[in-house]
């Protein structure tokens, strides 16, 4: 019924997260309806991304050169290092404009039950950077999940005594009512309460 090229496009689109076969069809037809250069521009963007993007040799975030834009920026404070699970966590931290240090992407979190052990993450690379780059504070910004917490504890054990270690505070979402908070979040918030 459909042509082979259209079938192929729909098949590729439906592999994206949150896109089922029906939405894939809708997207494909939408691309066909507009001007010809739109799908071409999209295709070029995809090809460029696939060809140019590689891990930053220092922090393992996305880069197009040897270093990512953050590592290449001389104004960033290299004595402050923020450890995240995935590159996707960097963007929200950057948007806060509260952080002027650099990053280190682990590539996941420890999950022993799934067989993700320290060797599977970029932990050796982290330790080497801490020693080599004059880092004085490591901010452990792994996710506030069981796996993220365990990863933070593991790294803290490894780095204790060499640098100042901090962990992102976890607690109540800003703007939320206390009565709607779940007990784990509230319990965490109580443990992490601070002096005013």
């Amino acid at each position, binding site marked *: 019924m459909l042509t082979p090229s259209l079938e192929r496009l729909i098949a590729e689109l439906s592999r994206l*997260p*949150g896109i089922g076969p029906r939405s894939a069809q809708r997207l494909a037809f939408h691309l066909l309806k507009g001007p010809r250069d739109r799908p071409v521009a999209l295709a070029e963007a995809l090809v460029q991304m696939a060809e140019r993007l590689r891990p930053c040799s220092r922090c393992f975030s996305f880069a197009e050169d040897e270093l990512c834009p953050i590592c290449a920026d001389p104004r960033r404070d290299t004595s402050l290092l923020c450890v995240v699970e995935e590159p996707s966590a960097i963007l929200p931290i950057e948007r806060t404009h509260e952080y002027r240090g650099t990053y280190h992407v682990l590539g996941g979190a*420890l*999950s*022993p*039950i*799934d*067989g993700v*052990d*320290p060797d599977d993450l970029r932990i050796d690379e982290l330790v080497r950077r801490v020693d080599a780059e004059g880092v004085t504070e490591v901010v452990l910004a792994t996710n506030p*999940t*069981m796996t993220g*917490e*365990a990863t933070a*504890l*593991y790294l803290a*054990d490894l780095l204790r005594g060499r640098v100042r270690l901090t962990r992102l505070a976890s607690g109540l*979402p800003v703007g*939320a009512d206390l009565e*709607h*908070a*779940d*007990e*784990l*979040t509230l*319990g*965490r918030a109580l*443990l992490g309460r601070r002096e005013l």
Partner: protein
Amino acid sequence: MPTPRVYRTNAIVLSRFDLGEADRVLTILTPDQGKLKAVAKGVRRPGSRIGGSVEPFAELELLLVRGRTFDVITQAAVEHAWLALRDHLESAATAWYLAELAERAVEERASAQPVYALLRRACQLLDDGMTPARVARWYEMDLADALGVRPEVERCVECDRPLEADERFRWVPALGGVLCEQHPGPPAEVVGMSLAALKLLRAYRRLDIEAIAGLRLPPTVEAEVEVLLRRFMRHALERDPRSLTFLDEVRARH
């Protein structure tokens, strides 16, 4: 009796994986339905009503709706949070190991009351700060019991003769416990063991964990019993749990 379309259950999250953009599929242990997979929708977004709750190592009360592939979690409340367990790496690594043993031991959609109660208590004890290795040994012994393969440590597994203090004992997981010196046993699976280790195994069998926690034990005997029980669990569950690699590494550094 078939489960109704909407049902309520207590549950402990054993493991989980991300699905799509913001969902998570959880493997949960429940008292009446053993382990099952359930989806928690939108939980990876901040501000999700159930997001913070559905993490491993908390006892939850869940409201679920039956689904085609996975049941769907519509409400979640935390009964016990076990927050201290998460702040101590060896306790957390031990809890993971115990959860993996439970996951291996329990069937999907089949009653698992004893295992559920066991894991729940183990998490509580780890949260209270009890020595993780003792909690683990006690758990392994009782889990074997729940699986119907409790190790025999009083009599010879071959001739049923009570074991005497002055003989040589051998540990044979394939036969279900201790062999007296009169039988050769299957050569590849026979491990020598000390009288002290036999006594400690008996203590784990006879005493409650609170009593065991108070015992003063030589580290060598504890280490020996650990090896013996691991071999036993490996035999009962047919392979080594994956989480042991991490637990061993954490312990090696302390």
